[in-house]
């Protein structure tokens, strides 16, 4: 098992390097960089800009620049943000915390709701209960998350039942830690619910189809022929088999933690990675964007690896291969 994990990790390293190199190329190939914007500013002299370029190593050619960046990454130095003038790692640390709490909140809620719904839908297949659920799922799958977010915001602007934008309220300073937590949670609720609602539909459908496939399998017939009660057949034999393909999906969702919430974050004003990357891209903030893509790539690898390990744990066919 240990060897398998190490093996997988080593396989990912060239991919990670390839991916970061391509992103480096993309950003550096763009016609402008951060300093072309500074040039417009008459208060900054061309000499200062040239000096800054040298400091950031931007006067060298792309490949050299890339290896310069890569070397720094291995020493956990992600570079300095051009526009914020602080280390990228510092910027990302704050935003990443918000994005991850948002994603985990919504992933947890999505799974808790859609797995039982999927099982229910499969058991009631082709009856009216399933037809209604599946129709709602269609709406959920088809409604764009940004549109859902706008409808939510419209609703909240009319009712004002939940706070909107940011992570904290104004009274924050004098509050007890528990009040702070509740306040944070309240702010999390709007983007969190939007993400949950837009995720339930597809997950419900996947789970329903998996469970349906499982309960129509020959081994389920065997279990019936053994005289096992129906509930035990569903929750032992069918559930285990239906959950297995979902594990891969779970790993995929974990790897999407970073970018999955981006658009909703921007629209609801949740200070996560989404807005940071958008601003970084628009202002050619090279190291900021590179670091975000790198973290995205690493998360993808970890998500996949996590799914592989989990799958090996629950599926003997994978484990004994």
């Amino acid at each position, binding site marked *: 098992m240990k060897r398998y994990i190490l093996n997988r990790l080593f396989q990912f390293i060239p991919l990670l390097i390839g991916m970061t190199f391509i992103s480096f190329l993309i950003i550096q190939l763009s016609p402008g960089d951060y300093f072309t914007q500074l040039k417009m500013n008459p208060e900054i002299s061309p000499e200062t800009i040239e000096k800054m370029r040298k400091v950031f190593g931007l006067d060298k050619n792309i490949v050299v620049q890339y290896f310069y960046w890569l070397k720094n990454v291995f020493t956990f130095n992600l570079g300095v943000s051009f526009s914020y003038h602080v280390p990228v790692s510092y910027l990302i640390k704050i935003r990443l915390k918000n994005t991850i709490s948002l994603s985990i909140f919504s992933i947890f809620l999505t799974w808790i709701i859609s797995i039982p719904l999927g099982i229910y839908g499969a058991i009631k297949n082709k009856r009216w209960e399933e037809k209604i659920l599946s129709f709602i799922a269609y709406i959920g799958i088809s409604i764009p998350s940004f549109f859902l977010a706008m409808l939510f915001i419209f609703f909240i602007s009319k009712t004002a039942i939940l706070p909107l934008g940011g992570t904290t309220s104004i009274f924050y300073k004098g509050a007890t830690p528990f009040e702070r937590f509740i306040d944070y949670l309240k702010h999390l609720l709007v983007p969190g619910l939007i993400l949950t609602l837009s995720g339930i539909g597809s997950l419900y459908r996947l789970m329903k189809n998996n469970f349906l496939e499982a309960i129509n*399998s*020959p*081994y389920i*017939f*065997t*279990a*019936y*022929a*053994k*005289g*096992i*009660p*129906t509930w*035990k057949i569903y929750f*032992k*034999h069918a559930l*285990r*088999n239906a959950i*297995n393909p979902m594990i891969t999906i779970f790993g995929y969702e974990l790897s999407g933690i970073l970018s999955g919430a981006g658009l909703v974050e921007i629209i609801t004003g949740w200070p996560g990675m989404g807005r940071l990357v958008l601003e970084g891209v628009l202002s050619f903030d090279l190291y900021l964007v590179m670091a975000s893509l790198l973290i995205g790539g690493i998360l993808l690898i970890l998500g996949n690896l996590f799914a592989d390990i989990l799958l090996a744990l*629950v*599926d*003997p*066919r994978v484990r*004994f291969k």
Partner: protein
Amino acid sequence: MGKILEIKNVVVGNEEIKILRDISFEVEEREIISIVGESGCGKSITLRTIIKLLPQNLNILSGKIFFEGLEITKLKEKEMQNIRGKKIGMIFQEPSSFLNPLFTIGNQIEEGINEKVEKDKKKERVIKILEEMGLSYNVYYQYPHQLSGGMQQRAMIAMALINNPVLLLADEPTTALDVTTAFGIISLLKNLILIHNLSIIFVTHDISLAKYLSDRIFVMYAGIIVEKGPSIEVYNSPLHPYTQKLINCLPEKYNKGEKIKTIEGEVPSFKNLPLGCPFSPRCEIKNKICEKRIPPEIKIGNRIVRCFKYGNFMES
């Protein structure tokens, strides 16, 4: 010997199609019965009818089934669960897909054990029956994909017999196996009859295997049992034109170089069955009446045949 299973005029199907039409037979204690027929003639459905596990779109429309004197057609699902696996076991054609891939063989056999006994006792019992099937005790800890086809089928039989049932339903258990492995399974089944107090209904399309294994043969065609009788008699002197043709197709009936005859035509689909005898479109000796009515059961000696050729129907 007493009857353990009695099926009386059972019809299975739905509004549109009838899969089983007027099926009647009984099974004695310690008897092996073979149901023979081409694919899609309703053999497997017959087995599924006995334990009331039909596909969702099919129902028992009429008729009665008695098991050990109990009318199981009247039983509720809950009560059926106490018969399935406890009194009637079942094994299948492809053990690889009929075993749950995610649980160990031990776990899957154990969960069928009816009585409330300690875990250790259960395990002891499972290992004992596995060894009886010619498997080593390791198999208890193994997953289905780690076993060969033959071993999977043995594990399957162990699973079906763990509660010492009186009836075993075997749905083509050797079809997916190669000849030598299949032979092993067949000998095992024959031995089991001697050890356990067991009757077997064995579904196959191989009539010579049926002759070798069973006491009686039922020949099925398009949802009707066309001929019933002791194996040797049915094999050596078939009465029904279909049985005759079926036996005529066997390679062992021919000398080297001779051309093997086949049955012309195809099995009719259940959606458009002929009005009369289902075999009439392929039958060479059919009469007008064959296309109008389904022949009744005609008793000849200790055999029963459904063909207008026997009795006084041909003249009218």
